[in-house]
C-alpha cells in the first residue's frame, strides 16, 4: 500500500495537444512522486496518455538544465555555469546597448511557439511589449490555413462538446487520427458506434483510426477539396441537398451551384483517386443518414490548397444541412473559451517614442525574414517554448542567419539543438513548479496549474525571468521597461479574469479552480443558434471576404497540376503517439517504445525501385538529401510515403511553401508541409 502522507496539487499539461489534460501531482518530502489524471476534468475524466504518466521522468530527467549557462564561442559546446545575476546583467546590458545603437528596439527579436500553451507563458511577449516596438516571429505552422477557412465560412472558431457526437448517425474522421493524437476522443467515437453511428475515415493513410472505423476511403494527399467537390456534384445531381437549410442559413448557394456544375466529375475522381461508388456512399451518408458529424484534422490544411480543402468540407456540411444541429457540424478547433484578458501582454511603455507593436518576421519563413531586416538588422534573438533549430524549414539558411546575431538567449528544460546554438541558456521550470492557466483549442474546460514542488535547482518560470529582466533594466535606466516587476504570480492570474469570464465559469474567484477545472459556458453544439458571425450572418458558400483577399470566393476547386517530374512522391509527416514534435523524445520509455526512424512505402513502389524491406535508402529533393531505413507498408498508396517525423532529419528536406491561407487570423500564411515532394533511390 502506498502511504497517504503526500500532498496533492492540480496541474495542466501545457503541451500543444487536443486534450489539455488536468492532472494531479502527488508530492512527498518536496519531491513529486507520481502524476495521475484529474477525475474532475469533464472531458479527460482522470485519464492521461502515456506521456502524462511519464512526467516524473521529465521533471527529474538526468539531462534537465539546472543552472543558467553561457557558451563561448557559440556552438562550441564550451559551457560555463553562470549566476542568474550575471545572466540577467549580460542580457539587460545588451538590450540597452542595442537600444542606444539603433535608437529603437527593433534589433530585438522574439521567437516563441507552442511548447507551453499556458497563459502566463505569454510573459516574454509581455516583456517585449513593455520595451516598445520589437521584432517578432508572427504566424503559425500548425493551423493557419484552416483558421482562415473557418473564419471565412462561419466568422468564428467554435467546436461542439465531444458528447455531441453521440447524437450522430454518420461520423466522418477526415484527415484525423485520434487513436494517435487525441485518445480521449476514441471512447466517445466507440460509444457513438455502439449507438449505431457509422464511422468513415477519409485519409491518404490507412491509419490506426481508419482501422477502427467502419469504412475507410483512401484519397491522394491534398485532394480533400477534389473529393468534396465530387461529393457536392453528386449531391446536387441526385437532390440530396437540404434546400430549406440552404435558403435559411447559407449565402451563395446559387453561385456555388453554377460554379460546380461545369466542373468535371471524372477529373475530380481522377485527382482524388476514388471511385464513383465511394462518392455515392459519402453523399448518401451525408444527405440521408443525418446528423453527420465531421472532424477535420490539421494535416489536410498543410497544403498549398489547405484552406480551400477546409472550406470545401465546410460547404459539404452546409449543403446537406449538417451544421448547428445536435450531432452534426464540422469540428476543427476553437477559440471561444479563451476569454482571458491577456493583461500580461498589455503593460506598454507610457512614452510615445517607444510606441508598442511588432515588426513581424514570418514565422514560417523566419530564416529569410531574419536576414532581410536591415533597418535596423536583428541582433538579439530570444527563443522560448520551442526548438527552433529542429522544428524549422530552411535549416541551413536559418543557421546562417543566426550567425549575425550578437546574442541568442534560449529558455529551456534541456540542452536542445537550439539551446546548443545559443549564447545563454536559462533553465525553465516545468508545470509542476509554477502557476499557470490553460485552456484547450478543442474542448471547453479551463484548468489551473499550481506549483507542487520548488523550482528544480536554479530554474525559474518565464514570468519570473521577465520580472527580473524588467527590474534590472529599470535599475540601469529609469522607466526603460514597463513590464511590472512587482506583481506576484497570483496577481498576474487574477488580472486574466473578468466578471463576465467568472460568470461563464460559474465561479466568483479564480482560486475556485483549485477545486477542479471548470467548463466555460459555451453552447454544447457549435452554431446551435445558427447565427453566424460572417458579414451576411449566414454560412458563406460564397465569401466576399475571401475574394477581397485574392482568393476564390468558393471553397471548392480542382487542383492545379503541380506534380514535379523530378520529385514525384509526396512525403507525409504524420504525428505519432508518444511525443509531441521534439518534446518527450528524450524520455527513456520513449526510446524503448520507439523504433529507429523509418520511411514507410508501398511494396509495389519498393519493387519498382528495387528497395528491400529494412534497407537504407536515399530521399532527396531540391532542398537536401537524407538517408533513412525503408519499411514496407500497405497503409499508403503507390505515390505516397509516410514518416513519423524525426525532425532534425526530415526538416533538411523542407523549405517554406506558402499555403493559400493563414494571414487573416494568424498573421502569416501556413506552411504547406504536406506538399513535400521528394524522390527516392536505393543505396
Amino acid at each position, binding site marked *: 500500500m502506498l502511504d497517504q502522507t503526500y500532498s496533492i496539487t492540480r496541474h495542466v499539461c501545457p503541451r500543444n495537444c487536443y486534450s489539455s489534460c488536468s492532472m494531479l501531482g502527488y508530492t512527498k518530502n518536496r519531491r513529486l512522486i507520481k502524476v495521475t489524471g484529474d477525475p474532475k476534468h469533464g472531458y479527460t475524466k482522470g485519464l492521461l496518455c502515456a506521456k502524462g504518466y511519464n512526467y516524473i521522468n521529465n521533471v527529474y530527467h538526468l539531462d534537465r538544465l539546472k543552472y543558467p549557462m553561457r557558451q563561448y564561442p557559440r556552438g562550441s559546446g564550451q559551457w560555463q555555469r553562470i549566476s542568474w545575476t550575471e545572466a540577467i546583467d549580460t542580457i539587460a546590458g545588451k538590450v540597452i546597448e542595442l537600444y542606444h545603437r539603433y535608437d529603437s528596439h527593433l534589433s530585438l527579436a522574439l521567437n516563441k511557439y507552442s511548447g507551453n500553451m499556458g497563459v502566463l507563458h505569454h510573459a516574454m511577449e509581455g516583456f517585449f511589449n513593455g520595451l516598445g516596438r520589437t521584432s517578432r516571429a508572427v504566424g503559425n505552422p500548425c493551423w493557419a490555413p484552416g483558421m482562415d477557412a473557418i473564419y471565412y465560412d462561419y466568422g468564428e472558431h467554435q467546436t461542439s462538446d465531444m458528447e455531441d457526437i453521440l447524437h450522430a448517425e454518420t461520423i466522418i474522421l477526415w484527415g484525423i487520427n485520434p487513436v494517435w493524437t487525441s485518445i480521449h476522443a476514441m471512447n466517445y467515437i466507440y460509444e457513438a458506434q455502439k449507438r449505431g453511428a457509422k464511422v468513415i475515415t477519409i485519409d491518404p493513410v490507412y491509419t490506426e483510426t481508419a482501422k477502427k472505423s467502419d*469504412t475507410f476511403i483512401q484519397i491522394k494527399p491534398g485532394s480533400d477539396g477534389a473529393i468534396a467537390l465530387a461529393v457536392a456534384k453528386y449531391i446536387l445531381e441526385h437532390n440530396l441537398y437540404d434546400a430549406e437549410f440552404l435558403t435559411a442559413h447559407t449565402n451563395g448557394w446559387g453561385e456555388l451551384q453554377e460554379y460546380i456544375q461545369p466542373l468535371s466529375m471524372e477529373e475530380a475522381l481522377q485527382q482524388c483517386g476514388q471511385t464513383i461508388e465511394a462518392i455515392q456512399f459519402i453523399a448518401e451518408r451525408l444527405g440521408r443518414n443525418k446528423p453527420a458529424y465531421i472532424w477535420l484534422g490539421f494535416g489536410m490544411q498543410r497544403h498549398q490548397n489547405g484552406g480551400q480543402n477546409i472550406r470545401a468540407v465546410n460547404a459539404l456540411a452546409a449543403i446537406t444541412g449538417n451544421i448547428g444541429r445536435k450531432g452534426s457540424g464540422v469540428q476543427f478547433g476553437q477559440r471561444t473559451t479563451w476569454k482571458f484578458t491577456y493583461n500580461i501582454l498589455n503593460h506598454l511603455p507610457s512614452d510615445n517614442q517607444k510606441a508598442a507593436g511588432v515588426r513581424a518576421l514570418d514565422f514560417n519563413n523566419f530564416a529569410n525574414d531574419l536576414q532581410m531586416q536591415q533597418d535596423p538588422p536583428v541582433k538579439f534573438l530570444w527563443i522560448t517554448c520551442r526548438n527552433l533549430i529542429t522544428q524549422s524549414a530552411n535549416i541551413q539558411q536559418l543557421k546562417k542567419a543566426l550567425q549575425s546575431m550578437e546574442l541568442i538567449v534560449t529558455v529551456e528544460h534541456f540542452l536542445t539543438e537550439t539551446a546548443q546554438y545559443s549564447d545563454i541558456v536559462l533553465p525553465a521550470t516545468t508545470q509542476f513548479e509554477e502557476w499557470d492557466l490553460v485552456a484547450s483549442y478543442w474542448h471547453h474546460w479551463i484548468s489551473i496549474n499550481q506549483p507542487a514542488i520548488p523550482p528544480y535547482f536554479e530554474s525559474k518560470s518565464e514570468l519570473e525571468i521577465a520580472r527580473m529582466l524588467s527590474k534590472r533594466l529599470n535599475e540601469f535606466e529609469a522607466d526603460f521597461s514597463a513590464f511590472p516587476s512587482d506583481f506576484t504570480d497570483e496577481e498576474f492570474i487574477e488580472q486574466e479574469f473578468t466578471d463576465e469570464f467568472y460568470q461563464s465559469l460559474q465561479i466568483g474567484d479564480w482560486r475556485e479552480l483549485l477545486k477542479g477545472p471548470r467548463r466555460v459556458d459555451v453552447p454544447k453544439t457549435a452554431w446551435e443558434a445558427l447565427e453566424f458571425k460572417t458579414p451576411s450572418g449566414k454560412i458563406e458558400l460564397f465569401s466576399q471576404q475571401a475574394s477581397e483577399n485574392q482568393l476564390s470566393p468558393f471553397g471548392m476547386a480542382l487542383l492545379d497540376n503541380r506534380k514535379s517530374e523530378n520529385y514525384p512522391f509526396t512525403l507525409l509527416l504524420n504525428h505519432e503517439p508518444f511525443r509531441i514534435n521534439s518534446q518527450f523524445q528524450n524520455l527513456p520509455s520513449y526510446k524503448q517504445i520507439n523504433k529507429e526512424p523509418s520511411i514507410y512505402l508501398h511494396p509495389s513502389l519498393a519493387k519498382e525501385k528495387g528497395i528491400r524491406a529494412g534497407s537504407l535508402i536515399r530521399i532527396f529533393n531540391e532542398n537536401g538529401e537524407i538517408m533513412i531505413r525503408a519499411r514496407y507498408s500497405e497503409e499508403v498508396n503507390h505515390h505516397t510515403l509516410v514518416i513519423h517525423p524525426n525532425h532534425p532529419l526530415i526538416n533538411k528536406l523542407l523549405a517554406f511553401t506558402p499555403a493559400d491561407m493563414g494571414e487573416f487570423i494568424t498573421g502569416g500564411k501556413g506552411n504547406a508541409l504536406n506538399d513535400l515532394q521528394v524522390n527516392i533511390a536505393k543505396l
Partner: protein
Amino acid sequence: MAKKLGFLVNIERCIGCHACEISCKSFYQLEPNMRRRRVTELPEELVGTPVRAFVSTACNHCDEPACKKACPVGAYTKREDGIVVHDQNMCIGCQMCGKACPYGVPQFNPVKKKMDKCSMCYDRLDVGQLPICVEKCPLEAIQIVDYNEVEPSNSVSVVPTFADPSITHPTTHFILPKPGKQTRRF
C-alpha cells in the same frame, strides 16, 4: 462461493496507447525498465494484414501458477479469489519464479533485490476500487471479470505469442477484433 477473478482484455477496443502500462508504472513508482503490465504489438496475421493489433498483458494469475511452484521460500500464494500474490518481505530475490513463468511475468527489482509482479491491485479491489490499469485505460479495454458469474462470450484464452495455456492455466482472456468487421475500403 468465492470469486474467480481474471483480466479480460479487449483487443478490439485497444488502441496501443500504453496508458495502462505507464499509469501502473507511475502509480507503483517502479524502477526504470520495470513494468507490471506491458503492451505489445501482435503479428499482423492475427486479424489479417494490414490491421495492426495490440495486446496488453500483466500477470495472468494462473490457476496453476508456475511461479508459486518454483519459489523456494513460499513467497507466492494464490488467494481464494484467484489472485496470485507475491510477498516481497519473504522474497529472497533468487529469480526462480521469473525463470519458471512461461510468460516471463515476475521481474527482478535491481534496487530492492527482490522480485516484483502485478498483484491485480488486490488492496484496491479489497476496498472496492478498480486496479489502476482498469481504471486508467482511456478506452475501457481492460476489465476484471468473475468467471463464476460470467463466461465472457467471444473471448479466447490465447493469442499469438502467448504461451500454451495448458501449462499454467492463465485466467486472462482476450476479446479479438470481430473477424467479420473488417473495415470496408474504397
